[in-house]
């Protein structure tokens, strides 16, 4: 160490202290993740109706029901945390934001579903 920087590592720890993510990012990101999960349920429901017409798929709706029934609860930790943060007055804004997010992420979601 030079005399000018007696404790550089200590200074680095202070200078590069962790940065808390902004609350609006947290809400947006959690809405997005929940939207992905919920859209997965919708997709499964749509698939289930069409699949019932094909006898070869009759075994598969049972699996879809299992997935659909549990997927809504999959991000329950995020949902609970978000509820704690969102005041009643902010509900519609968050809902609007979530709806916009769903629309914007349509393409991304289809890609995600293709991999699940």
């Amino acid at each position: 160490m030079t005399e000018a920087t007696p404790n550089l590592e200590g200074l680095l720890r202070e200078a590069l202290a962790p940065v808390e993510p902004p609350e609006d990012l947290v809400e947006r990101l959690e809405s997005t993740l929940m939207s992905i999960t919920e859209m997965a349920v919708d997709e499964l429901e749509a698939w289930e109706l069409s699949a019932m017409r094909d006898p070869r798929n009759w075994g598969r709706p049972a699996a879809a029901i299992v997935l659909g029934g549990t997927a809504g609860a999959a991000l329950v930790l995020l949902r609970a945390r978000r509820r704690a943060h969102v005041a009643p007055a902010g509900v519609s804004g968050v809902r609007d934001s979530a709806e916009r997010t769903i629309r914007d992420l349509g393409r991304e979601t289809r890609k995600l579903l293709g991999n699940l």
Partner: protein
Amino acid sequence: MTEQVSHKPKAQLDAEFSELYRAHLRDVYSYAYYRVGDHHDAEDLTEQTFLQAYRHFERAQRESHGRPLRPWLIRIAHNLAANLYRDRSRKPASPIDETTTLAALHTTEQLVEGRDELSRVLDGVRLLPDDRREALIMRFALGMDNREIARALGRSDGATKVLIHRAIRQLEEIVGDRDAAPAAEGGRSDGRTPQDAAGRAATNARGSGSDD
């Protein structure tokens, strides 16, 4: 003979992903912020990192063999940041917002006493080559150990140790030069800048071998 791949139920995967998200959101955001130097880009980078992570989570879990997934997350952020710069063909648009960062993270007393010193260190970090800067961010902002950093950067543990050592040595030279500069101001005729110091330090560090 085909390999058996066991798939977890989606609900279980999602629950595990939400755990990962909650545990490492601050890490990913901190990395993104110090990497790109801008809150707006850091938010985008963080969001994209978690979307990418969600998409590939099952495979990452399968291939991690129980090892922590933080290096994998940071590697996604690292790749996305590299793509961001490649697409824009530029370095960070604006300096790291020191006022916001320091005000948010330090007490008023520390702010008064330490601001100049910390600013000089942050300025020095910005002058480091990308790989050295990233290694220091991972070590000091995220508290990652050598093994985790090595996994995130795709290097060996040994190469990572050398990388961090050289990054600190180069930063010492940069900060040392900056500390000496005000004293010599007015009497100094060589016109050297901190950037000169960064280049000189890099040359010295590379003289003893590659970071790779």
